[in-house]
């Protein structure tokens, strides 16, 4: 069990979420918005999807050195469970569900003749005697089996659940969003089970240039996306909250200083700032290599730093919002009443200001998430994104660009990254909208 920096932070984040949830449990003023969120169908569906992605991400964040092999390679739980897919590497490109390689090769047939043709894949559809005829049927069959297995699994747990909470059956089944939610869960469970089943025999999304399974890459990329989206906010929040509130509440020179800081940071083109800092990390790592013996660690360091710098560049927006809001709040009569009552400033901050800006924070966090995931892709394109050895959609897209020029065109790598990224971002966006509509008072009353 080795804990990388990002892992630690991720689990810290999860912990904080739990704590926060526990603390806010049953707070009256939250009940209405939360109720609103739970009531919205799309919102809940997207939430389910997010959670699903999140779980994959978590699985991928538990790293350890496998006991059996002597190499000091660090792998995650996810890697461990998908070892088969991970190691079933072809030689080069192969299209989804292909049994043959995608590019011709010289093959010496048994009778010693040299042939220029498409060779069979080492793993993809290797179990088939005669792919050309049997393949489709085989795929269908395997898919059906996998799906039913998944469905069975789902059904089992569903019934288990019901039997556990007999009395709360109503809430489980009758909630406005209950039906679609269960539906989507069903689809996810059985769908993913099906995919897992299939990728035992085929490369579901084909393979890339070095014959690595694209499906595996896409799944691995999930963690990167999530880390960027979540850790960045984790880093930027303290800055934004503390500075924003202080600037708004104390005004005067405090305000001036803080404004100065974030105007300065804002005025520097973000990309350039990021570029500079990424180079800085590389230098740092180059200078003391001994700490970064394993590729994973190096990549992780860079990822962390990317989040860090993204956080530094992106806190200003929220900070400004909070400042404005605090300026409003501090004029509120209940704050003045508190002052009249002789309540100390920091207590006023904690008790009156902070809770009343929470919704802004929440909203901006969920809104930022998706944009950050998108940003990662762009940055990777300019080679100042995540480490090239980390799996990330950005990197996938980046290499896929060149494949677009191939004839016949290699589309699956691009498509895979597109699909996964799109699903995540879409879910995030929809969920963000739901949250905003629920928590933003202005919207709350005008509908």
């Amino acid at each position, binding site marked *: 069990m080795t804990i990388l920096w990002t892992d630690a932070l991720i689990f810290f984040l999860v912990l904080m979420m739990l704590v926060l949830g526990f603390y806010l449990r049953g707070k009256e003023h939250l009940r209405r918005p939360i109720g609103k969120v739970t009531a919205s169908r799309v919102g809940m569906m997207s939430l389910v999807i997010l959670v699903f992605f999140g779980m994959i991400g978590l699985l991928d964040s538990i790293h350890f050195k496998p006991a059996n092999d*002597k190499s000091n390679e660090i792998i995650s739980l996810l890697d461990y469970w998908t070892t088969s897919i991970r190691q079933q590497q072809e030689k080069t490109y192969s299209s989804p569900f292909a049994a043959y390689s995608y590019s*011709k090769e010289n093959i010496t047939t048994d009778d010693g*003749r040299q042939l220029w043709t498409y060779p069979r894949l080492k793993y993809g559809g290797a179990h088939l005697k005669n792919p050309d005829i049997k393949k489709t049927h085989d795929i269908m069959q395997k898919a059906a089996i996998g799906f039913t297995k998944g469905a069975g699994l789902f059904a089992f747990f569903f019934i288990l659940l019901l039997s556990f909470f007999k009395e709360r059956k109503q809430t489980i089944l009758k909630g406005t969003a209950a039906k679609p939610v269960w539906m989507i869960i069903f689809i996810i469970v059985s769908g993913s089970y099906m995919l897992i089943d299939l990728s035992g025999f085929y490369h579901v999304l084909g393979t890339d240039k070095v014959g690595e399974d694209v499906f595996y890459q896409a799944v691995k990329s999930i963690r990167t996306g999530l880390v960027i989206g979540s850790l960045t906010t984790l880093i930027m929040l303290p800055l934004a909250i503390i500075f924003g509130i202080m600037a708004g509440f104390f005004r005067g020179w405090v305000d001036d200083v803080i404004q100065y800081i974030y105007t300065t940071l804002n005025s520097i083109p973000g990309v350039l700032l990021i570029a500079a800092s990424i180079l800085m990390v590389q230098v740092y790592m*180059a200078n003391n290599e001994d700490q970064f013996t*394993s590729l994973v660690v190096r990549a992780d360091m860079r990822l962390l730093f990317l989040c860090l710098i993204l956080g530094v560049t992106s806190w200003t927006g929220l900070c400004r919002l909070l400042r404005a809001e605090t300026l409003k709040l501090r004029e509120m009569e209940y704050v003045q009443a508190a002052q009249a009552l002789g309540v100390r400033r920091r207590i006023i901050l904690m008790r009156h200001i902070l809770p009343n800006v929470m919704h802004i924070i929440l909203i901006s966090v969920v809104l930022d998430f998706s944009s950050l995931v998108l940003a990662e892709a762009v940055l*990777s394109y300019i080679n100042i994104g995540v480490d*090239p050895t980390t799996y990330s959609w950005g990197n996938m897209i980046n290499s896929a660009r*060149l494949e677009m020029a191939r004839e016949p065109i290699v589309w699956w790598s691009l498509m895979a990254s597109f699909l996964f990224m799109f699903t995540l971002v879409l879910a995030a966006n929809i969920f963000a909208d739901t949250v905003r509509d629920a928590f933003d008072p202005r919207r709350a009353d005008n509908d």
Partner: protein
Amino acid sequence: MKRTSQKTCLLLTLIVSLVLSGCDDLQLNNPYSDSEAGQTVLYSSFTERPKHLDPAISYSANEYALIGQIYEPPFQYHYLKRPYTLEPLTAEKMPDISYFDAEGKQLSDKVDAENIAFTEYLITLQQGIKFQPHPAFAKDKQGNFLFHQLSQQQLDSINSLVDFKVADSREVTAEDYIYQIKRLAHPKIHSPVAELMKQHIVGLTEFSKQIAKKKLVNIASIPISGVEFVNQYQYRIRIKGKYPQFIYWLAMPFFSPMAWEADVFYSQQGLIDKNITLDWYPVGTGPYMLVENNPNRRMVLEKNPEFHPAYYPSEGEEGDRERGLLEDAGEKLPFIDKVVYILEKETIPYWNKFLQGYYDASGIASDSFDQAVQFTGQGGEELTPLMKGKGIQLQTAVATSTFYMGFNMLNPEVGGDSERARKLRRAIAIAMDYEEHIAIFMNGRGVSAQGVLPPGIYGYQTGQAGINPYVYDWGNGQAQRKSIEVAKQLMIEAGYAEGIDNKTGEALILYFDTAASGPDDRARLNWYRKQFEKLGIQLVIRATDYNRFQQKMRSGNAQIFIWGWNADYPDPENFFFLLYGGHGKVKYGGENAANYQNAEFDRLFEQMRNMENGSERLKIIRKMEAIVRYDAPWLFGLHPKNFSLYHSWYQNLKPNLMANNTMKYKRIDALKRVELRKKWNRPVFWPLIVLVIMFGAILIPAINAYRRRAKETMQ
């Protein structure tokens, strides 16, 4: 509601008619102005703007592609003949070489190298060679230069060289060649070969000290002991000892003539501020001259009106005549009026434009390889039907360069003269399956290296005799890599059974240093790791930027690295010196990156260095190869094989890896190009129309909804 739908219909019909009318022969995607269509203009590209176009500084392929056409050294490589042979370019004839001993007494050609103290090259120039027209030469009635002290208001009206209305030329003299040599020595210039030349040319070192403080423009008058002005058309260069390769240097732009006027002209601050410098606007004698240099967009070469008469070669290799390479024999050069280099960063657009006929030639990115080339049964390659259909021609040539995986010999683990390390190196050499590497990453565009020398370099051996016996066996007519078992056996002998160090019991971890960090490289790096894993070795990649990489190489912190070398000139010396102890990177900051040091090898090298080609030189070369193969400081990687595609209208093509001034020989059939482009670029419109219709389909119900809302009452 009805009205609107009618409107949309009307609109559609309009568009359709318009489209159909203009459809037949319009080329919407033509990136060039139509006026150029008929001319014999060659379109090429550059991905990164060349850093220097000053022949004294420039030292990289992409720069040579330009200045090779502009500057002319005294000698050049024959365009057609193989093996590469030198011929006079601006010189009247090949140089007269004479040897002297320490006392300055002339010696016969037969004496052996060690008692030769000096060699003299007497170079005789053609008469009547003139510089390209250039404002630097422009004079007024009184015969003093117009533009050598530009006034402010003159400067204001000037943004590029074109803005100078007056331009003039003058004949080239030996002085100009000598002046260029002097420039090489000037510290301000940072000529990359300065240090090298100081080792060879007599008196250059002293000269450079002498002028270190002086302005560039004032050095013309100061003499160099080793370079002598004989007369208008003759000058003499004296070098230390015997150094036959020196003639090759004389065929490189470093030794092309340079007019002192140019330096005076360009040294004006006003121009420098406007990026008008010798580095960007060359002044040469060659067939072409740089008329537009906008490194942010395009560079344009145009025929040099003052170009001295030059003619297409009339004899070549056997088979050239059949290939139609001699049809233009004796024709006056150059054929192409204008060459346009366009900034093209991305490979995809370039490739697509090439297919659309907007570029005349193209390399093959590994991604578009399958599209272009297929291999016939016997490993030979040919174009795909698609390409053949377009009439595209394919040319291949093995580059005179080598890529090798170097072991830092100073490193205790992999380096050193110990048997243990040597075995380890050999094991790795076997495990690294370069055939697969070539297949995967280079689509078979390369040959796995058997030794230091690439094909086409004197001393290269083909067939069974040429294989590296420690890595390959000779089986059914070709070199076959030894099986991995052999490697494992070696590992055991070395004491790394299964990759476990028998001393420490730890898994063996090796470090691979590279500057590569692109996403494509990731695949490559993974592949390396896989190769090492075959032996149970764990390879740790230490990727960093190029600077850090070089830093490491200099300080010798690297363990394993991959590097390449591109021949400066076709001589084995230019490769073996990469392993010569005297060039050790860490010790002497030389090019011997592996820091390999082997007394015997060095001795042989010093011997071989200054011999003419001949049987005994060959013998020495064989010995050296053998030593290197045995010690395996390098893991001989591969010699890349250049594939290039040319459109059917592009003629007189023969790959020449040494010459860089081949543009003048090439020919373009403009008319053919025009009609083919038309044929290939018919724009497709129907999707647009479909789109418009769909949009309308969305809008109409919207309007309905609005009207319905307006109509509704409260009841």
